[in-house]
């Protein structure tokens, strides 16, 4: 793979702070995750009522995508050729637990379809695709830890094979109040090189 690709922006959500390209855009300490993400949704003018039906993982992913795509001026009313490659450690465990709880008691047995549909990690990619009309390739990997190398190789391969114009890569992890989102957009033109060093540098920012 000889071509160079570039990271055009990155967004992090962790420790109750949302940052875009290293600068804070929203922060609210002393809140549990669900309260925090809802407050962030309101504060950042997200204006997408479907947000409220989503599970925690999808809320986290869609808010990070919103911040990043807004900065990139991605128009959600036209098709966008953006592949999505996400990963995490805990799959959909947070929602899995809720589903499990709803089926454990024979006497109070009311499984919720709205919870069950989120018991797969890749549904959060589905939600982003619906909002931004993304029809290109997508995948979700489960890793012990964030793997910059894997995402680097995958994104490079998609771009050099001409499969897509841009790749949204990331790590979206949620387990109760332990959460972390890190998304970055890889493009064909730009100034910051898409390299393992930069991916890790921005992950740690």
């Amino acid at each position, binding site marked *: 793979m000889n071509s160079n690709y570039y990271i055009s922006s990155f967004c992090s959500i962790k420790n109750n702070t949302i940052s875009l390209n290293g600068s804070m855009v929203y922060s609210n300490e002393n809140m549990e995750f669900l309260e925090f993400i809802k407050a962030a949704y309101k504060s950042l003018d997200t204006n997408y009522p479907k947000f409220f039906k989503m599970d925690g993982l999808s809320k986290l992913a869609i808010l990070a995508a919103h911040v990043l795509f807004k900065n990139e001026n991605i128009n959600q009313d036209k098709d966008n050729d953006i592949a999505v490659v996400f990963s995490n450690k805990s799959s959909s465990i947070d929602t899995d637990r809720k589903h499990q709880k709803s089926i454990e008691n024979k006497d109070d047995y009311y499984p919720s379809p709205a919870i069950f549909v989120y018991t797969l990690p*890749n549904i959060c990619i589905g939600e982003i695709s*619906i909002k931004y009309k*993304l029809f290109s390739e997508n995948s979700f990997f489960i890793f012990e830890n964030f793997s910059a190398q894997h995402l680097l190789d995958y994104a490079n391969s998609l771009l050099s094979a001409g499969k897509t114009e841009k790749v949204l890569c990331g790590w979206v992890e949620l387990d109760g109040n332990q959460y972390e989102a890190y998304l970055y957009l890889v493009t064909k033109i730009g100034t910051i090189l898409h390299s393992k060093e930069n991916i890790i540098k921005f992950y740690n920012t």
Partner: protein
Amino acid sequence: MSRGVAITGMGIISAIGNNVEENYESLLEGKTGISRVSKIKTIHRDDIMVGEISFTNQELEQQLGLSSDNNYSRAALLGSIAAKQAIVNAGISNINKYKTGLISSNSVGGMDMTEAHFYDYFQNDAIQKYINGHHSGDSSQKIAEQLGLEKSFVTTISTACSSSANAIILGARLIKSGQLDRVIVGGVDCLTKFTINGFKSLMILSDTFNSPFDEDRKGLNLGEASAFLVLESDKVLQAKNKPVLGYVKGYANTKDAYHQTASSDNGDGATLAMEKALKVAQLSSKDITYINAHGTATINNDLSEGRAILRVFGNDVPLFSSTKAYTGHTLAAAGAIEAVYSILALQNNIVFPNLNFKTQMKEFNITPQLELKEKELQTVMSNSFGFGGNCSTVIFSKKQ
């Protein structure tokens, strides 16, 4: 340039057989594996039918020679059995002689053990070992250990019903790019109350034998299975003179971008996946001789997929059938077991029937292949469409 990636080995365990030969015999005989669930205690026992594998966990442990302190979930057991069959079939004696990797997939990991033992963990130390077995990546790690690949590239894909198709796609790419010489690709899912109850809440489970593409279809039957294929590079093939079972010739993955679980009315994601796979294969729609459809027998999928097939193939729809009436919908394993069936179809020039069909769907006039049919096959297209709108198509060919 579209040189296919060689498939040199396959392994499978499903409701219709415990290895490739048994699965093939069942396919030929029209012998379904669907029945009432027997190994899981569920209140839905009389309302659903499933594709259950006959072995108990104990029997599977014995087959693998595991010690009694193992913490293998049923997923890890089934996956190990299928993966080991695949490498034997591929004639591999020294797995680390070439750069080899494993890409597995599943949707609920070791959930079967978790739901059986969760409430006893505090009282009973002896079963706490299963806590570590819950994780989605755990079965992949155990399969890697069984194969001797624990120090190699091992990863887990989790994209619902398209997972193992995506594993095949990633494996083919890793070989084409020269990053690996050999990849074992596939997936596994076992039956769990978690999935039974969840699908029941979506009201898409049938209470009888599933009938794909039938006007009166009532929904899907869940199934459990595992299958793995061995993909090898030209370099390995040149060094070792071994038979090639078929080639991964084309593939594509797209998003339907419509709903968390339902497919768009006209199968947009499915249409794109089939079209793009043809492009990668450098084939036209006329070159496809059989489609192994996703065909889950839900109202939504079969309509959506049928429309997508018409959009792609127009007046020239090839023979198509869904084999889910045999095995049930095996979730993450579906792409891989149907890849095995696609290769069997290619090798034997035979199209497997779409069982239980009675009435033509009123929305279109294409009918699946209803009887076993001998036909010269050059290419088979296999569809796997997952929740989250993750649509994958893989094209297999006889020649490179």
